[in-house]
């Protein structure tokens, strides 16, 4: 004798490979347990479900309510009546307990997915800060956040995205701090995503970002729980995706990409100095090569006279013009950067040595590039690594090529035009209504002061530009 549930189970077993069916005879009653072995905690299934069922000796008739309330030891169980949901539960890793004479069935959480332990961060490295990084398991990540923020107003809203992957996406925020409008907009954009699968948080990031400003990053990516929690406490919204070890924070503006977590743990004078250093790094990466082209090709007289001769002498053997030389060297550096990111760790350092010594030094000796060019591209490369969030540097790297080209065609005039255009573009963007250049433009003194000093003792208010419900921190 069977019913719709057992028929469904039979059908699932036929159609989906890996599905196992365990039929138990408990007295006069038959109990069906269906699961997928690879994603089920079989020890938990055996000890907490199968064993207590087989040891059931009471005379009462076995019902689903009795099983869920009094027999099995699993902590997370609920009942469902819709047999069409069985396939989804099984694919999630849950175990289904069904009785042939019952319309309902029990869904037990016996999910067990292979996951790695919490390790030190790979991308977000700091000198002084906690090193518990997120993993690909959403529950582990949420446990790290819950461990740091023990507040009843911490909201974790689940949304399932992806018709085939059915990936869990969570939106985390403090309900009494975060701006409601931002939360609603983010949730709506996530719910509107129509795609077969979400494999990484970058998919979500691309879908919910503003389409006209995709060139510049609009969300911060965080690998560590302390910096993520710091952003949540500021009133921002965190988005986490099951299967991704990176959390997204929004809204995020330009200056916040230059903020690292250990700025807030160090002395404020050091933090201020380091922040200024990072601004300098952005300017160097963006403009140094372009200025070189502009000076060598158009306006050599703006540099000290003694150096004009040295510069000209160093370029006597270079076979190409300054623009071509710069573009070629920058492409070589980008190739080195890309190859060092892809290579296995064992031979990665070797490439670094090959790149710097062979290509840099040898190219100068061979007379293919000038020594100054090597210094400039090396400085630019080093400066690009000074920024904590590499996503902004990716945009800066691309803009750098644009600056080189416009300076190569129009001289320092083109350089100023290009730079002005970039500043105008930055000033005209807003993320969820938050100006991208805030608190510089529009100028907000308190927020800017708090940003540069990064002193938690002096930061009594949350940033003004976030328009939080509650601005007071202390």
């Amino acid at each position, binding site marked *: 004798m069977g019913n719709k549930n057992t028929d469904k189970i039979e059908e699932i077993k036929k159609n989906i490979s890996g599905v196992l069916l365990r039929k138990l005879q408990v007295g006069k009653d038959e109990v069906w347990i269906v699961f997928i072995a690879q994603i089920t905690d079989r020890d938990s299934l055996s000890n907490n479900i199968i064993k207590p069922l087989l040891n059931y000796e009471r005379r009462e008739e076995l019902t689903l309510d009795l099983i869920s309330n009094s027999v099995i030891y699993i902590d997370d169980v609920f009942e469902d009546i819709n047999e069409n949901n069985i396939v989804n539960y099984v694919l999630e890793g849950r175990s289904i307990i069904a009785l042939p004479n019952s319309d309902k069935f029990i869904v037990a959480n016996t999910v067990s997915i292979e996951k790695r332990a919490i390790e030190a961060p790979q991308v977000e490295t700091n000198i002084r800060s906690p090193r518990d990084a997120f993993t690909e398991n959403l529950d582990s990540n949420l446990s790290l956040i819950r461990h740091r923020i023990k507040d009843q107003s911490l909201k974790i809203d689940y949304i399932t995205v992806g018709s085939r992957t059915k990936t869990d996406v969570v939106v985390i925020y403090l309900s009494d701090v975060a701006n409601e409008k931002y939360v609603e907009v983010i949730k709506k954009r996530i719910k509107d995503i129509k795609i077969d699968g979400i494999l990484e948080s970058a998919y979500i990031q691309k879908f919910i970002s503003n389409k006209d400003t995709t060139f510049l990053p609009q969300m911060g990516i965080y690998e560590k729980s302390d910096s993520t929690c710091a952003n949540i406490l500021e009133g921002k919204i965190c988005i986490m995706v099951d299967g991704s070890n990176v959390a997204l924070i929004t809204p995020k503006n330009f200056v916040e990409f230059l903020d690292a977590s250990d700025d807030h743990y160090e002395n404020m004078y050091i933090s201020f100095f380091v922040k200024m250093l990072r601004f300098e790094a952005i300017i160097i990466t963006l403009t140094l090569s372009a200025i070189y082209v502009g000076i060598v090709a158009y306006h*050599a*007289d703006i540099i000290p006279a003694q150096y004009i*001769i040295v510069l*000209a002498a160093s*370029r006597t053997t270079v076979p190409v013009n300054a623009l071509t030389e710069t573009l070629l060297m920058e492409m070589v550096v980008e190739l080195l950067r890309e190859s060092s990111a892809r290579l296995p760790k064992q031979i990665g350092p070797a490439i670094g040595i090959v790149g710097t010594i062979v290509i840099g030094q040898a190219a100068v000796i061979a007379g293919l590039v000038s020594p100054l060019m090597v210094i400039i591209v090396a400085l630019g490369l080093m400066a690009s690594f000074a920024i904590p969030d590499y996503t902004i540097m990716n945009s800066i790297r691309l803009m750098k090529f644009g600056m080189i080209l416009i300076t190569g065609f129009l*001289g320092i005039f083109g350089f100023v*035009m290009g730079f002005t255009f970039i500043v105008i573009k930055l000033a005209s963007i807003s993320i969820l209504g938050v100006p991208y250049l805030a608190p510089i433009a529009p100028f907000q003194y308190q927020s800017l002061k708090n940003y540069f000093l990064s002193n938690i003792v002096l930061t009594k208010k949350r940033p003004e530009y976030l328009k939080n419900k509650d601005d007071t921190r202390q």
Partner: protein
Amino acid sequence: MIKKHYKLISMVILSSLLVGCWDYEDINKKNIALSVGIDDKDGIIQLISQNAKLRSESSGKGEQTQITQDYQNVSQGKNFEETRGEHEYIVPQSNFTGAMRAVVFSKSYAEKGIEAYINRINFLSDLRKSLLIVICNEPVKDFLQTEIKNDISIAYAIEDTIKKLAKDGRTLFKTGQEVQAYIQNKDLGFVIPYVGIKDNAVEFQGLAVMKDSNMISVINKKEIDGFLFLMLKKPNMNKTVYSNGDEKKQYSFQAKLKKRKIKTSYKDKKVNIDVDLQINFSIKYQYKIEPLNKNKIRDLESEATQMIYKEVIYAINKSQKEYKCDIFEFGKYFKANNPKDYRKINWNEEYPNANINVNINTHLTDVNLRSIE
């Protein structure tokens, strides 16, 4: 995309009409001029340009070193255009004048007038208006060929020497733009640094006096102090005075001009100029140490004041009697204070007969940690 960004695209296209890649030329492909000299050889203008020679040579283990030297191009002609044309025929690259440090006129050329080349500097866009103008004692070709031992090249040596002295309040730094302004003012004369070569180094030898853009005389560097007190903003003299006339008891002092007031008037058909100099006077050290007291300091101050007074009077007398030319720009003060009278008179004729009174007030500021009894 074009419709959306048409404003931006049209801005870029219009901008390219002002500048563009047709101006593109790498610096190493240009002829870098370091200095230019103008000389006059029997009525023929000689233009000597000193250019940077860029070459690299390998030394030892395949390492390259860049050595910069300079070389000369001499061209001549009846006028600057002809001279320049001859220069273009022998120089294979386009000229870059951004590194040029100085323009050197020979004495013989300066005596005939430098106005033509000064106008050339000020009206041609490829020559910097802030170029240093000097006159040299030797023929320019020999002067610029000198191998300088204490600087990169002679052009840099000229500029560095004059710049340092000007900064120390020991001479003037005259640029092409300033000289052109002086030449336009027909009532005033002016001075230009006068240099020469000594021991393979550029030597400041004095100031060349220019009237109507012609050199008429040279003020020797030993007699220059009085002139500088009247011309410079912050002149600075280091001198010695004798205590009680005793040569062995010399006191080294420094005199710095604190303020210079010039009042002018026109009375009884005569120009009156009152020059009031306030000088800060500080004792540096004594050649032979002896106790200092207030009376002694008063005497030293008086001696120093007398010394400076004599030098200033000497300078004024020279300008009135010998040069007959207002090189101190008193005419500007007179014009400002008495515009109506200025229009009535001919300043060039009135200046040599002007009544110039000099008053010097010195004020002791420092005895260099010596105690005063």
